């Protein structure tokens, strides 16, 4: 009785990816299988600590006998499946997705891998017209408190923040998608300011945002004044001081000042999620 009970052993399913045979436990996604085989796959709306919502479409792959491309992040691997991750159709589709996204929002501050993939596929957003005409880009950042900035001209509507605020982490449900078409945006209830909303300022939405649309105010201000320098930053992992849960904190330090706090997504205690104290309560370390 003393041992940790292990769940029923899972059957292995066998599929073919890019011509090679792959075996993964039943229930794995095609993305899991690709990662197991070391096949690099771009993602935007997927994260290891969130449930896939498959909206961004950059992880699509071609599955034999499937009419359309399928999102690898959420489609389960099946016995006998034949998958192509680098076919002409896949390359064209991924390139187009990046071009469409980058033509409607500002991806300048997106994760480095976004730019690497755009280069890889030769994506050219200017083909889609002048971004300056798009309503999304013509917004000013929302600065409503001293902790968060919401810079919606960078938002690709990947829903990661909504997931992190809701059932995947915080269960606060302060934000959701509102509006249709070009008006679609992430909003608080009735678009009230963040301090007036249900927000508890855990910052888990910022932790998962892939494009810099949600950003710590420290980082936003330093970027605006031109002093943000990631290359000059060190990252040290320590343990939060504020309660007994034992959340691990990654302190990003530039010139002996803490400029940002993140948490490792692969750590068993909270899988990268924090509360307001852990995320923002470090000012006393540099007063």
């Amino acid at each position, binding site marked *: 009785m003393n041992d940790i009970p292990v769940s029923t052993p899972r059957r292995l399913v066998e599929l073919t990816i890019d011509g090679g045979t792959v075996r993964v436990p039943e229930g794995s996604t095609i993305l899991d299988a690709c990662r197991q085989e070391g096949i690099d796959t771009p993602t935007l709306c997927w994260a290891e600590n969130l449930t896939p919502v498959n909206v961004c479409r950059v992880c699509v792959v071609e599955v034999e006998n499937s009419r359309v491309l399928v999102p690898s992040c959420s489609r389960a691997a099946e016995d006998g499946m034949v998958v192509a991750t680098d076919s002409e159709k896949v390359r064209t589709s991924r390139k187009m997705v990046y071009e469409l996204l980058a033509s409607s929002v500002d991806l300048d501050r997106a994760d480095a891998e976004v730019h690497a993939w755009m280069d890889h596929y030769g994506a050219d957003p200017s083909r889609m017209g002048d971004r300056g005409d798009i309503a999304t880009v013509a917004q000013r950042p929302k600065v409503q408190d*001293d902790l968060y900035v919401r810079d919606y001209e960078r938002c690709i509507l990947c829903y990661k923040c909504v997931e992190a605020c809701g059932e995947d982490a915080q*269960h606060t449900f302060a934000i959701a998608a509102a509006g249709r078409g070009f008006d679609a945006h992430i909003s608080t209830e009735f678009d009230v300011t963040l301090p007036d909303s249900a927000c508890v300022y855990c910052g888990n939405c910022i932790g998962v945002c892939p494009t810099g649309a949600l950003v710590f105010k420290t980082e936003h201000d330093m970027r605006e004044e031109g002093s943000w320098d990631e290359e000059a930053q060190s990252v040290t992992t320590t343990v939060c001081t504020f*309660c007994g849960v034992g959340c691990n904190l990654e302190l990003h330090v530039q010139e002996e000042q803490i400029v940002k706090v993140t948490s490792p997504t692969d750590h068993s205690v909270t899988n990268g999620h924090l509360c307001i104290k852990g995320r923002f309560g470090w000012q006393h370390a540099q007063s």
Partner: protein
Amino acid sequence: MWAVDPRRSASARFADAWLGLNVGTDIALANGVAREIIAADMVNREFVDRATIGYEEFAAFVDEWTLERTEEVTGVPARGIREMAHAYATAPTAQILWTLGITEHHTGVDNVLSLCNLSLLTGHIGRWGSGLCPLRGQNNVQGGGDMGALPNKLPGFQDIGDGEARARFEATYGTAIPAENGWNLTEMFEAMGRDELKALWVIGENPADSEADVNHARRLLGRLDVMVVQDVFMTRTAEMADVVLPAALGWVESDGTVTSSERRVQRTRAAIPPPGLARQEIDIVAEMAERMGATGWGRPTAGELWEELRTLSPMHAGMSWERIEVEGGIQWPCPDDDHPGSPFLHGRLWENPVGGRPAPFSCVQWRPPIDELTEEFPLRLTTGRALDSYNTGVQSGRYNSPIRSGEALELSTADAIALGVQAGELVSVSSRRGSIEMTVAIDATLQAGLAFTTFHFPDLADVNQLTSDAYDPKSGTAEFKAAAIRVDKLEARADA
């Protein structure tokens, strides 16, 4: 998830059901739940027979705690008590988690024992997914105890009265260790009152703000011949000190370990250097030892001290500094290098035959809070924390939280109406120990007769002037959770 709390806290709102019991009736509720589990024939008899002692006596003891009587004392409807008892007893796995609402009472230890009874009745202990879990309020409360910062224990929870254990420490440290228990915090303050304790070295604590009945505590600190405070900020306690030793901030400026609620030992690492004259705490302690005439301390690193500890504390013996680093934390007990660490305790109760002695039921009697409600002090004040703040605000008071509402006395709608006070109004709040002014806030989910406040801003509202000086003689922990107060309108007081 069931939440049991006098207030409808954020956790209570999140839970499937909430039982809003009267402050200080935890034992009554636990005894009532136990009685219902027994009466409904839901006891895990196989476990009870094999792994426990004292069941028959316990069953007879709680027999008076019928649902009706439990409802009368706790204020929780009988149906809620019955449903929670049945849900707990029939769940495949179940945990009871608690915080200071259980321990900060004059019956704190008995409160915990009453919960232990429930886990023994149902066998929800010693198994994966089941158990009893005190949620620690600070990142290293557990680690402080683990390291012997208790008046009756050596590191690794070895009894100070255990000659064999003491001999091992004496051989390593090259000095004799007294065999008698020291004083706990409450006993230290009592000893200050008798002038038996005349010198105090306070490390990283702010008792001049955080003690219950704080006016009394401040007077006692003022009687000391000498007080040395080692801290990261000029706290109120530091302001009273004869000597202040500025220290590095543990979680940001020091290498070391902390131990979480789940007994997980994890590394803290220095990310920035300490400012100005602040020094690493290991260096401060070592230099103090040298000034007192000790030799050979040197300036050990945190890693070197940890490796020494693990030769002395069997439950840490398998946790090398390197393993803690590589594995990202290990849960004690971890007796040898190949041991993976222990996600839960008390698995021995499920061994066949049971390993060690069987677990005893405890017949614990409900006793109401010491600070009685009377006509003069008719409201029950309980204190607690807000999400964005921490204790006396020494650390958390320095960032600009958008959800901080400041210190307020939260009252039920009914009491606010009866007192004729409104939200935002400044009122006088008094207990048998002190009187302060506070701003009123109204919490419509509070039961009539119950008031609540945080204690994060002693400069705004010196809440611990009100809190109760009663304490649990078994643990030394003060009854922060149950003070009797009165609220007066300021103009009424001026008229009087």
